[in-house]
């Protein structure tokens, strides 16, 4: 029991904002460099591998589309974890993390939607179809935007953190729906071919660039997320300093 609480204290020491800032300062440059390297390799691979005999050149869209779609879901999962942290452990950094992730997640979801649309036009003949996968991802996009609007509308983070955490957790229902929509319903969208219980069904020729791009995108997400968290901490410092300035102004008159 005492070990457990010690571990929790250590964890929260690490997650103390000042320490987080110091850590972020040290980690960010390396993370950025590694991300860039992975992107260089990933892009090189994705343009040098052969096209698919069935889908032609458009298979290259997959190397952007699939990682972006993965990230749109992973980002929401990170937000849901952070929301849990806000509600259960009341950790101040958890709310910072959740807030910082929302715009990034919205961007990746947007990317997944747009590239999917660009892939769908030549394959299916339509920019958009209302099937379960696409619709649920669109709902995810709307949820990101809604959360961003909510975070903006309530300028006092102390009060808004709980409210938006509850909303994030409720919205998490959507993630399994997105993940399994291709299997539960008969849709136009092709089923998962990489993350399967019985091993990937995709040709290794396509798998290699895909995995490298996925790692690159994931690293990119963490880089941006840490940077955005740092911004959010600074933003809150500015806010609290301003309130302090307002309180102390005019006292000497």
């Amino acid at each position, binding site marked *: 029991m005492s070990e457990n609480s010690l571990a929790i204290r250590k964890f929260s020491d690490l997650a*103390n*904002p*000042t320490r987080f*800032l110091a850590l972020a300062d040290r980690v960010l440059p390396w993370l950025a460099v590694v991300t860039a390297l992975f992107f260089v390799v990933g892009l090189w691979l994705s343009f040098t591998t052969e*096209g698919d*005999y*069935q*889908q*032609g*050149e*458009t298979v*290259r*869209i997959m190397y*952007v*589309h699939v990682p*972006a779609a993965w990230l749109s879901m992973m980002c929401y999962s990170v937000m849901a974890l952070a929301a849990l942290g806000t509600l259960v452990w009341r950790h*101040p950094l958890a709310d*910072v993390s959740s807030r910082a992730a929302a*715009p*990034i997640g919205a*961007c990746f979801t*947007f*990317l997944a939607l*747009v*590239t999917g649309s*660009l*892939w769908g*036009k*030549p394959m299916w003949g339509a920019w958009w179809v209302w099937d379960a996968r696409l619709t649920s991802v669109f709902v995810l996009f709307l949820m990101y935007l809604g959360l961003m609007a909510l975070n903006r509308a309530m300028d*006092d*983070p*102390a009060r808004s953190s709980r409210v938006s955490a509850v909303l994030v957790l409720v919205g998490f229902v959507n993630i399994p729906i997105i993940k399994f929509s291709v299997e539960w319903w008969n849709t136009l969208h092709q089923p998962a071919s990489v993350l399967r219980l019985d091993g990937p069904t995709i040709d290794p020729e396509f798998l290699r660039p895909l995995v490298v791009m996925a790692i690159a995108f994931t690293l*990119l997400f963490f880089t*941006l997320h840490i*940077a*955005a968290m*740092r*911004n959010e*901490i*600074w*933003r*809150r*410092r*500015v*806010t*609290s*300093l*301003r*309130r*302090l*300035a307002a309180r*102390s102004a005019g006292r000497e008159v």
Partner: protein
Amino acid sequence: MMSHAAYVLASYGIATLTVVGLCLWVIADGRARQRELRELEASGVRRRSAEASNGETR
């Protein structure tokens, strides 16, 4: 089978634009916040020690 190079290029282009835009936004946001912090500190507002150890209150 057609090659559909335009669609591929468009999706890579939009992806690049979005990612670069996001990166620039994060960087610009960070710069702006740091500038505000510096201005506040220059105008003589100091964090109390309690807040210094726990940067975000309220």
